[in-house]
């Protein structure tokens, strides 16, 4: 069919799963909202297609020493309020985030030592140690750049203070952010007249909204609503591997799961495809290991673990585990589907003679116990690429002996060695290979049961054109997004 012409007066409504709650502090997740809204931009940008970091507000960068990176800023970029985006503005923005009491995950004093202006168009970023991932960090939304006027005494005021294709003009507290086209956008014409980001935290409501046409794009559709949306011809459903894997964390530090045989047995007992097809409505792929298959560092040879009850029973026997009391599976309430997942696991454990109870608790309530190693199993999921499109932070924090977030309490010297090499490896291919080897070790040790790789699902109304799904949920309103009449 011939493409209909985009309507230059059209505005697009995006139902976003996240509401800004930190007064637009850029070190918080609020930065994502501004980025989705096409307001906030960063020096560099991670391109999902080419899987590389590309220029955005900076035209180029170079590493002048192991720890020093010089960013050449794009010329003639104006903030929406008319002031010039120069090195001063950029350093001020970045330093503001670095000074935060609760700093961002990717951009904080531990990863960045200082940011200074070399001249009007050059910014130097100094890292405490060699960090090949710095451009990735500069692509994280937390490193966004706002006009100096945005930084007020009472907090951040994003209205008309960004560089992006859309300028926020008004906000209804707790409800929505309205944006108008930035006529002066540095990267060319903006197709939409404006847009609205609606904060709708209920997943089912987001799905309904795109169905009823109240929203043009609904982000992060819950799996439970997938079938209904797919049945709707007015809506196209976009899916991509998200960097999240639902995982049954096993406590490797105490009995019974300090025994690798038992951990393997547990892995073999679970029917992951069935789980993915049921609770996740087919909106998730059975996991092959710690990484999603589409990630460049995933081991393509790993397959989905096969259910093998006989073998699993043997392994249970080999482990010598005699069950005295039922094991406990904690399902965190933050993720509604885990209650169902827990119920399925409970059933399937029965087949290999393991008794387990599911308890649901809020993550906050169990966190101290889990971190202290006082639990059996917990159902949770972690983002491998928090803020930067690289899993190193995750691999280090979650699985290394000293990892700050090592829920499984796993410790393997070989693994730690690989991670330490990766940390300073400048060559991307080699680094990815190191990640793969690390992942293989985790899989071999059956540290956890990686259940399913979640999909990022966006529902998009049929009138929307030029929408490119970003599984890292950073870019939605772009200059190329359009809507037909």
């Amino acid at each position, binding site marked *: 069919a011939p493409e209909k012409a985009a309507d230059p007066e059209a505005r697009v409504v995006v139902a976003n799963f996240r509401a800004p709650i930190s*007064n637009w502090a850029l070190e918080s997740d609020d930065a994502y909202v501004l980025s989705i809204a096409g307001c906030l931009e960063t020096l560099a940008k991670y391109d999902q297609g080419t899987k590389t970091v590309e220029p955005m507000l900076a035209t180029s960068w170079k590493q002048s020493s192991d720890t020093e990176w010089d960013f050449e800023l794009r010329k003639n970029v104006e903030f929406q309020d008319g002031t010039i985006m120069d090195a001063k503005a950029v350093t001020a923005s970045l330093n503001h985030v670095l000074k935060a009491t609760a*700093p961002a995950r990717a951009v904080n004093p531990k990863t960045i030592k200082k940011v200074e202006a070399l001249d009007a168009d050059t910014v130097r970023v100094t890292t405490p140690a060699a960090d090949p991932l710095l451009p990735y960090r500069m692509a994280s939304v937390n490193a966004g750049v706002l006009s100096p006027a945005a930084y007020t005494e009472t907090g951040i005021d994003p209205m008309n203070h960004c560089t992006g294709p859309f300028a926020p003009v008004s906000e209804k507290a707790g*409800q929505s952010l309205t944006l108008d086209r930035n006529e002066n956008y540095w990267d060319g014409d903006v197709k939409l007249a404006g847009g609205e980001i609606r904060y709708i935290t209920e997943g089912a409501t987001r799905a309904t909204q795109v169905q009823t046409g109240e929203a043009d794009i609904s982000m992060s559709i819950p799996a439970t609503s997938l079938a209904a949306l797919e049945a709707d011809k007015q809506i196209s459903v976009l899916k991509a591997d998200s960097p999240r894997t639902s995982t049954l964390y096993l406590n490797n530090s105490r009995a019974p799961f300090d025994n690798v045989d038992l951990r393997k047995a547990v892995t073999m007992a679970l029917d992951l495809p069935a789980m993915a097809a049921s609770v996740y409505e087919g909106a998730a792929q059975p996991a092959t290991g710690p990484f999603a298959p589409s990630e460049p560092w995933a081991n393509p040879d790993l397959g989905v673990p096969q259910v093998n009850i006989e073998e699993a029973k043997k392994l249970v026997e080999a482990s010598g585990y005699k069950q005295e009391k039922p094991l406990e599976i904690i399902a965190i309430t933050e993720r509604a589907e885990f209650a169902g997942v827990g119920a399925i696991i409970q059933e399937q454990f029965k087949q290999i003679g393991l008794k387990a109870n599911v308890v649901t608790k809020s993550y906050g309530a169990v966190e101290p116990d889990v971190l202290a190693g006082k639990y059996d199993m917990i159902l949770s999921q972690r983002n491998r690429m928090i803020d930067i499109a690289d899993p190193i932070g995750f691999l280090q924090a979650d699985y290394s002996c000293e990892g700050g977030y090592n829920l499984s309490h796993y410790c393997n010297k070989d693994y730690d060695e690989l991670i330490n090499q990766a940390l300073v490896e400048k060559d991307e291919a080699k680094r990815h290979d190191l990640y793969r080897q690390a992942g293989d070790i985790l899989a071999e040790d059956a540290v956890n049961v990686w259940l399913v790789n979640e999909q990022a699902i966006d529902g998009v109304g049929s009138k929307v054109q030029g929408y490119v799904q970003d599984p890292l949920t950073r870019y939605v309103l772009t200059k190329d997004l359009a809507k037909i009449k």
Partner: protein
Amino acid sequence: MSPLATVLRRVVGLGAAVLLSSFAVFLVPFVSPGDPVRALLRARMDIGEADEATVQAYAEQFGLHDPMLVQFGRWLGRFFTGDMGLSHISGTPVADQVLPAIGVTLSLAGGTLLVAILVSIVLGVVSATRAGQWPDRLITSMTHAFIAIPEYALAPLLVLLFAVRFSLLPSAGYDSPASLVLPVFILALRPISFFTVAVRSGVRQALDSEHVLAARARGLGRTQALMRHVVPHGLLPLWTMVGVWFAGLLGGSVIVEVIFAIPGMGRLIFDAIINGDIPVAQGGVVVVVTCAVLVTGIIDLVHKLSDPNVRIGVRHG
């Protein structure tokens, strides 16, 4: 009791209510499991893996590691100077979050009550004047059915019907009058029941009262007597109920606010407690309690002032 004494009593009661309720909210993080500071950080950043230093720094910023009573005292001190403090999550004044929410809630509660009052006056008067006949029986059954409806089952079904199937109404949000239709309808069901019954019994009583008989004897027609003498009297019990329901609706519409994504007071308090943003929860509860006590108090007072019997001090019984 003189009106002044009533007012004084209410004011003292209000003070105690505010103090008690804010303290109760304040206790939550101290009694719930988990580290409250980490919970706050998690709310700011989806997956928090804050290290100890960050936690310390953050706690430091808001004085969260001080002894409990010190913290509460500090809150109280600020509160009496008219400052509800800063949100622990956004760091902005609590008032900035509470005031828009109370606006939303007031309009939601106001709309709900308005609808409920109008509907129930009609239903109540019809039912009272047709007592025992089919319209009365129908209305009475309706009122009993309305209170038994779980709104959390009805709301999704109505959304399915009116938003998804027929695309008549928005499914959620709070921007257009249309978006208020479903929430108001659902919230109004229960007050309609109670109000209708109150109007019905008030009107019935007025119908039986001698002054209505006398008005008829004076030559007033049935309808005129109804409009001039029966209904105004019959509505007296309604106003007390309205006050009570208003108080209840201020913070009690959490379910509907959640289902319809309405950024109201109930939701604000609910989320704030869940996220551990205690100053916001405290501020919200204080405002809700104050509004509720004020409204019931004012209605009570108006009631006392306008009721000739009470005003003159005629003995009852």
